[in-house]
């Protein structure tokens, strides 16, 4: 089994070497690919940001106010995500479409006079769908790190005169940072390479690098270029992740 695994990576790299330079030059200089790379990063970073931003108060609520219903809350959060990823993203297409559920619902209630178009087949739609789709992956790690905080530290900080806001920024946030970083990485890494969501709700303005990899593979029949694109995106993702972890370490050293 190890043999098999090592095998595909090895083989993959060898194959790359045979063709490398030209494909990489193309991958990094062609405006199309540059655009797709930067858009993928933009979408995925925005999604990461919003998901973590929304997940944090949720995790905070469960951890500090959940009482003996913590398990129930966590269970409730995860239920919708046991359904197929494909179907959930497809549902966003149905919801956000021009004659979709959201528009028709708002029209029906006469809250709007004509369908909203800014949430339709573009990056925004991809961001909304992904922010929804990855929510539990942010809530759970943040919740775990909040749970680990020794509650006596909070009392200590209160006794030493910290107000609630100061306490949050000086004690709770730094201590829960590992969870936040974990959440961010768990979301950032797979969303960069997401194929389904941009294809379903992204239209042409919301396509991401994974879609191009697939096109290069099947329709354009340029597997080496697709491979070069995959490796490049992997390297970029790894690079950003490392920068992120290092920045976090620097931030934590302040305390």
């Amino acid at each position, binding site marked *: 089994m190890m043999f098999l695994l090592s095998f*595909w990576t090895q083989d993959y790299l060898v194959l790359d070497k045979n063709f490398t330079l030209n494909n990489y030059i193309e991958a990094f200089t062609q405006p199309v690919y540059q655009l797709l790379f930067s858009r993928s990063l933009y979408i995925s970073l925005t999604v990461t940001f919003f998901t973590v931003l929304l997940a944090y108060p949720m995790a905070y609520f469960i951890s500090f106010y959940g009482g003996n219903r913590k398990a129930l809350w966590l269970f409730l959060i995860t239920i919708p995500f046991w*359904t197929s990823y494909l*179907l959930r993203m497809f549902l966003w297409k149905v919801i956000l479409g021009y004659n979709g559920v959201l528009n*028709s619902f708002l029209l029906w209630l006469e809250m709007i006079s004509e369908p909203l178009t800014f949430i339709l087949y573009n990056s925004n739609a991809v961001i909304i769908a992904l922010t929804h789709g990855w929510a539990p992956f942010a809530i759970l790690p943040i919740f775990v790190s909040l749970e680990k905080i020794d509650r006596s530290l909070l009392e200590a900080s209160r006794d030493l005169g910290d107000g609630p806001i100061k306490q949050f920024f000086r004690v709770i946030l730094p201590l829960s940072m590992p969870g936040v970083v974990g959440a961010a990485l768990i979301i950032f890494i797979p969303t960069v390479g997401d194929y389904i969501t941009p294809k379903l709700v992204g239209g042409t303005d919301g396509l991401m690098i994974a879609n191009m*990899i697939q096109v290069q593979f099947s329709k354009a029949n340029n597997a080496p270029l697709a491979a070069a694109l995959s490796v490049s995106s992997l390297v970029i993702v790894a690079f950003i992740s490392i920068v992120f972890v290092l920045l976090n370490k620097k931030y934590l050293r302040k305390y």
Partner: protein
Amino acid sequence: MGRSGKFLKIFAVTYLIFLYAPALLLPIFSFNSSQIIAFPLSGFTTGWFKALLYQETLHEALKNSLIVAASSSVFATILGTLASRSSSRYNFPGKQFSLTFILAPLVLPEIIVGVSLLIVLIQLGLPLNLWSVVLGHTLLIMPFSILIMNSAFNNLDISLEEASLDLGETPIGTFRRVILPLVYPGIMASLLLGFTLSLDEFIIAFFLTGTETTLPVYIWSLFRFPKQLPTTMALGTILILVSLILLSLSEYFRRRAAKTQTSVL
């Protein structure tokens, strides 16, 4: 609960509604009689569910998916059990490295796993069929299976094993009669989780399948036909129910695994 607590609670409930909204649409629209997925609702029908009964390609895809899910979860669980058994009991050079390596697919974007597997298969001149999908899914499930089995093996008291050996059991007999029954719930949990993951997985299957499609690939092809939308919704409703049942079972076995350990000790 202070004022901030109340705000947080309101936020939490709103967020929960946001999380549930899409999934709730499935049952609503799978019983709606209009072909267009939009409000207002037009009437109640079970016709979309009936239509599912007559789709030959669907049945074929379902059969393929079940074959793939069953075989890849079995393979991944066997390999995962062996891997976590060796890593939790023995030390060998490169252990940490190989474990990290096996767990790698967990953090790789799926499309990259799919692409690289496809390249390897093409290079080897292997045909693309259901077995290539099984291979891909085995690779995908194995990290999960290893994580589940690791916790099962770590909870296992080594003295039970030693006792059995001292009492004259052969190593194989010990494995079969002592270790296996104790980690059995972990194995069940791994099988069920793997089965569900594989049943749901789209990208790897999309890349590696030949002419035979799996269920998600079939659903993907349905998206192109607006006429098929309500049927797709009906299918989705059924799938949700099935994965809910499977995952509750998996959770049940996981809990029982934890309980068995404590009651034995």
